[in-house]
């Protein structure tokens, strides 16, 4: 009896297993999101996290920029290949001979997405909002190049007419600066300068306070090529083509779907299963696999950022610049980028990324272990003897850990110095670093706009981002002088001198210059490599997909 039952059970089990497999293998494949997107001109873009907000005067992150770029357009916009400022809401502009006054002429007939005309007054009202302290615009200092902006923001005056933003008429806006700012037009492409529709914001609450519901779908009014259609937290943000955009005829995409995916592994699997056209990141372990098997899907673009180690110069053992120089000279950066990061990053022998709008530092650190040993000996620590052990602080990340381990070994091997690794959770790490309760701390800096000053000014004595305790009067003087000059060549010469001081004093150790490593499907067109990773959407479109690409992608990534 039992024998019979068992045989019967085996048959049932075997049948069920076979039926299950046949069902899975035999089913027709459902259409992929990317396939549908190609047909309907819907771009699916991965985004590393949910946007904090979609109010350009409140946000401060890259994911937010990527979405806002679709919803709002400023006076100027960016050329899709080199991010050169090109006409946006303004059709043209005049710059006074001294470089301090910009007069923008708005296009005729431009409208907000609710049909209201876009006027010069909208821009003035927007600037006033961003500079009103109660709003807490974290990038308000971006406006401080404008005449009177800092005084208004700091409450020294309540009269906004003293600020250098004037609507001469409905279509003419004049902005007066404190001095010539050669990168001013590029600065306008930072979202803190972007206009908002104040009557809409006022409808949903106090326009000068946070927590306003105007950025919800259905409420949002913008003037960009797309309008906000859906925003499900943690799921998707959908923007649809704005028929009222001045250049709507040339916008080829009908929709863009932003998918917040925090895990790089999940995002890569989504890409492989045909759910994304473009990812935000690639898991480090997959870079070499794609590079070998599907290079056409892997994109490695230069990126305006530096990965470096801060040195706490207030600690006794780091007060002597020869020690700091020795530490910097003993690091083999090439090994790090080739064996650890593996994403085409450039070894950093200076701080400002090379060819930042034509600027490359002439001064450089060299990899010279012998020189490093001599410097350390001259500083009183021959062979590292007597040098107190210290910590490298880094936030939780496999990559940071691997780099710190490599540097720990290099310093031990080349200099005889003992180093401990100290890993902290992100917010704890930030707190520790800001309190300067560290010895050496890993850090990264991404440029806010395309100009060397966005890097070098980070280490001004009074900069909140310095956090090294290092200050140099001559360095500060050179940068302040450069900020008052209009001539690019003269400015860059001052930057060269400042960076030479910086590299001699070595309050930070540059390690590598970033690249943006991501996956991009071949049907995405108009997606150019740009140093700020900006991709103006009116120039992006989807061409029919080569049939082989998905299979190639899958095959590539299935290998370990």
């Amino acid at each position, binding site marked *: 009896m039992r024998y019979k039952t068992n045989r019967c059970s085996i048959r049932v089990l075997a049948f069920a297993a076979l039926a299950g497999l046949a069902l899975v293998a035999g089913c027709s*494949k459902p259409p992929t*999101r990317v396939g549908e997107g190609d047909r309907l001109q819907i771009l699916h873009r991965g985004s590393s996290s*949910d946007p904090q907000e979609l109010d350009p005067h409140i946000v401060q992150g890259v994911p937010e920029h990527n979405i806002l770029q679709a919803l709002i357009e400023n006076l100027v916009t960016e050329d899709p290949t080199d991010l050169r400022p090109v006409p946006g809401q303004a059709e043209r502009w005049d710059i006074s001979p001294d470089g301090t006054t910009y007069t923008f002429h708005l296009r005729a007939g431009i409208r907000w997405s609710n049909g209201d005309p876009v006027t010069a007054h909208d821009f003035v009202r927007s600037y006033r909002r961003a500079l009103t*302290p109660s709003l*807490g*615009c974290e990038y308000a200092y971006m406006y401080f190049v404008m005449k009177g902006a800092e005084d208004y923001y700091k409450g020294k005056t309540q009269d906004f007419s003293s600020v250098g933003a004037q609507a001469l008429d409905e279509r003419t806006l004049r902005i007066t600066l404190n001095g010539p700012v050669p990168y001013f037009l590029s600065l306008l492409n930072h979202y803190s300068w972007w206009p908002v529709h104040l009557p809409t914001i006022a409808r949903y609450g106090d326009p000068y306070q946070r927590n306003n519901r105007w950025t919800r779908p259905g409420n949002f009014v913008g003037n960009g090529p797309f309008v906000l259609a859906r925003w499900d937290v943690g799921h998707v943000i959908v923007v649809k083509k704005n028929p009222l955009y001045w250049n709507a005829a040339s916008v080829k995409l009908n929709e863009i779907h932003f998918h917040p*995916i*925090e895990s790089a592994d999940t995002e890569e699997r989504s890409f492989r299963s045909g759910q994304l056209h473009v990812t935000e990141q690639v898991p480090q372990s997959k870079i070499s696999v794609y590079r070998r098997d599907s290079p056409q899907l892997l994109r490695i673009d230069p990126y305006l950022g530096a990965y470096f180690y801060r040195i706490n110069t207030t600690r006794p053992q780091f007060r002597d610049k020869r020690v700091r120089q020795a530490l910097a000279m003993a690091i083999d950066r090439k090994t790090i980028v080739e064996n650890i990061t593996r994403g085409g990053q450039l070894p950093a022998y200076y701080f400002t990324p090379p060819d930042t709008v034509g600027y490359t530092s002439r001064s450089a650190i060299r990899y010279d272990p012998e020189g490093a040993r001599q410097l350390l000996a001259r500083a009183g620590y021959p062979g590292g003897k007597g040098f107190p052990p210290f910590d490298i602080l880094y936030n939780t990340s496999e990559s940071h850990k691997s780099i710190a381990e490599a540097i720990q070994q290099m310093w031990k091997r080349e200099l005889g110095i003992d180093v401990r690794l100290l890993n902290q959770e992100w917010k704890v790490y930030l707190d520790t670093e800001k309190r300067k309760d560290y010895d050496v701390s890993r850090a990264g800096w991404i440029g806010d706009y395309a100009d060397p000053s966005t890097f070098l000014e980070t280490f001004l004595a009074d900069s909140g981002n310095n956090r090294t305790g290092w200050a140099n009067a001559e360095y500060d003087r050179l940068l302040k002088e450069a900020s008052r000059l209009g001539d690019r060549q003269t400015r860059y010469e001052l930057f060269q001198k400042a960076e030479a001081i910086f590299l001699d004093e070595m309050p930070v150790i540059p390690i590598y210059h970033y690249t943006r490593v991501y996956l991009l499907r071949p049907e995405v067109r108009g997606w150019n490599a740009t140093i700020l990773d900006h991709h103006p959407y009116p120039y992006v479109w989807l061409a029919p997909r080569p049939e082989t690409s998905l299979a190639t992608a899958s095959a590539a990534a299935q290998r370990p």
Partner: protein
Amino acid sequence: MLQLIARRILETIPVLVLVATITFFMMKAVPGGPLDTEKNIPQEIKVQIEAFYGLDQPLWKQYASYMGNLLRGDLGPSFKHANRSVNELIAAALPVSLELGGLALCIALLVGIPLGIAAAVRQNTWIDYLASTTAMAGICLPTFVMGPLLVLVFALHFEQFNASGWDFARDRVLPALTLGLVYAGYIARLTRGGMLEVLNQDFIRTARAKGASEIRVVFRHALRGGLLPVVSFLGPGIAGILTGSFVIETIFNIPGLGRHFVTSVFNRDATLTIGTALFYAALVVALNLAADIAQAMLNPKQRAN
């Protein structure tokens, strides 16, 4: 019974107040704040934002204000999701977690109970060994292995499902399977244990002596008692399925509550952390109560007590 329910509900109130209080002070004690970012926020701007969120007030005032709002059912604004309230975030994510949890629970019960019964009825045969091994594998295989494995086979190889997302009905299959199979393992083992205990009792022998069929003995007489351990497990089990879905939500990118629960701590989004902790505490208490009631209904001995 009503008295029991009323007493248990009343007991819930101090538990929730304690959870809110402890979470509140823990979030305040941990280093780093919601406004800390890599790029420095100028002090004057930070002051404005802190004033807006009431973070400039003394701690006791912040606590009193939070508890006052809590009494009105207002969990406060989220720091990370700047224009959303915690109530809204929970309301949006809860249906997703409920759906995922509900489906996973169905899978767990539908797979676990039959497996457990089969193992108990055919004790020490290959069926028992197979069922027990399968259950053990389900328990031992972590979701972060099982999830990507299922994706690799069914999404990337056979291309029948999406690797992530929560857009279509088919997007529910792989996450629900991943989560459900773990609990199926526990349920199978508990069912097997419960059934074995009942099947050895005198009343079962009596039923068999009276000539009742094996099916009648198992399903009519033994199952009711054999499932008691499963019922008591289901209280915390369901709570676990709902709260323990963080890994699944991350692997499959599902906009559920589990992710808010964990990421809010990393973001120092105190209001969201307290809100989700409170919500889960209430859920655990409610589900345990429901399990107790169900057990009382199934077990006449307990009902009498």
